[in-house]
């Protein structure tokens, strides 16, 4: 465990040092590649005056609400498409088609429909999450060995009980990968929306990124990018890793 931590720390320290050395070599203008020190200085400054916290809060809130809505709608819809030929031919095909649409394409529509509001942001995030979750759930349910539902039925399980006690848990490995993919898509769509659109109800990390570019403040751009990466890692470790560990333990799919 300690060895793993050590290896990871050394690796990231090496990256920062290499970055520092490249900057010191003065190959590119500091406008293009700021030094890690100035990025760190920006982060400290933005943390002290509160803009960083506020932007993070705004973005994470949008993300969690939109992602939550996407999951709440996506899993039941995926169950529907998996259980009915008719839903498969309608909702299923719709999901398959819209999933290929880059979620940034929803931004103009969201603006027209909802104006510069939170609703527009949420709409884009939900559109980014929903379709891949429908497809993952559908795929997961269809991949379940039929023996599970037969065994459950023979023991007297019917209807809703079969869905909640057999189909959903059996599809959990697929649901998880769908949720992870949905999370990644939610991030991408929200960043795209925040970079393109100024929303008066709150400035998110995407806005900070955007203004950093406008002001030629590369330290700000890279600083915000770092924050985005850190949040993504933190969510993976706290939200998905426990489910993954449960899967590995129960299903016996551990990698070691």
């Amino acid at each position, binding site marked *: 465990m300690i060895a793993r931590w050590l290896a990871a720390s050394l690796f990231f320290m090496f990256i920062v040092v290499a970055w520092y050395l490249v900057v010191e070599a003065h190959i590119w203008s500091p406008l293009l590649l700021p030094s890690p020190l100035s990025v760190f200085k920006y982060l400290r400054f933005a943390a002290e005056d509160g803009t960083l916290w506020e932007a993070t809060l705004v973005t994470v809130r949008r993300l969690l609400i939109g992602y939550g809505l996407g999951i709440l709608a996506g899993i039941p819809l995926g169950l529907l498409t998996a259980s009915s030929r008719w839903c498969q031919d309608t909702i299923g095909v719709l999901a398959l088609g819209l999933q290929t649409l880059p979620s940034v394409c929803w931004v103009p529509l969201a603006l027209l429909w909802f104006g510069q509001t939170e609703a527009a942001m949420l709409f884009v995030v939900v559109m980014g999450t929903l379709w891949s979750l429908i497809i993952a759930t559908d795929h997961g349910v269809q991949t379940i060995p039929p*023996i*599970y539902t037969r065994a459950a039925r023979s*023991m007297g399980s019917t209807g809703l009980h079969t869905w909640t006690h057999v189909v959903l848990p059996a599809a959990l490995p697929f649901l998880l990968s769908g949720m992870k993919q949905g999370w990644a898509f939610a991030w991408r769509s929200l960043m795209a929306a925040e970079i393109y659109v100024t929303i008066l109800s709150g400035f998110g990390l995407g806005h900070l990124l955007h203004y950093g570019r406008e002001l030629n403040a590369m330290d700000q751009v890279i600083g915000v990018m770092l924050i985005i990466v850190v949040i993504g890692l933190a969510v993976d470790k706290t939200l998905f890793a426990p489910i993954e560990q449960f899967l590995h333990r129960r299903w016996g799919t551990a990698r070691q």
Partner: protein
Amino acid sequence: MAASEVNPANTVSSKLVLEHVSKSFRTRTLTVHALDDVTLRIAEGEFVCLVGPSGCGKSTLLNIIAGLERPDRGLVQANGEIIVGPGPHHLVMFQEASLFPWLTVLGNVLFGLKLINGLSVAERRERAEYFLELVGLKRFMHSNVHELSGGMKQRVALARALAPNPSVLLMDEPFGALDALTREQLYGDIQRIWSQHRKTIVFVTHNVREAVCLGDRVILFSPNPGRIREEFAIPLLRPRDINSVDLARYSTEITRVLKGYVQAEVAG
């Protein structure tokens, strides 16, 4: 000793009655007559083995008794009542790994018990532990399914099928995927459990020796259309050893008859 005599099915009240049961499946290119006019009576506490080559409809018959499929024609009764659907009175133990990987061993055995009304949490737990003890796996009750060997998995499946106290236990080639040694152990277990609990068991297999080792009666099926061809009473004392010479005499005879039908099928 657990000396058991054959229950002549027609003199005792029948636990399970099938009359003129037919079932066919339509695929895109042909119609398969899985079962054609099958009539069968099984007495309370009887151990009946259905034997035949694959495709002779024996698994279909089991699914019909389980209520998982409906017959096209004919009558299926258990305890004097027509079977309309699946339920804990006639449980199936399948060939393949049908244990739920998202539950522990105990969770799997509890699954069926939770579907029975009127049992307290403590009673369920007690019953689950009792049947895990019976199959010799109580100390594995908190294990995950993937940690068990193939034989242990089928033992848990047996405990899961027995726990809701079904009046008829249906077994669909439950030992088909196991190695010979493990299988022989399980023959011993299932005979011991059967003599203790006297469940009515319908056991499907294509292994004649296995059928002779376990059954009071061996019923021979032939395919296309699936029909009952012959019946053999096995009046051997229990517990039976699959390697015994007495047993071999019966299985040789039955195998010879079975081959006759299969060859007739190929020639025809």
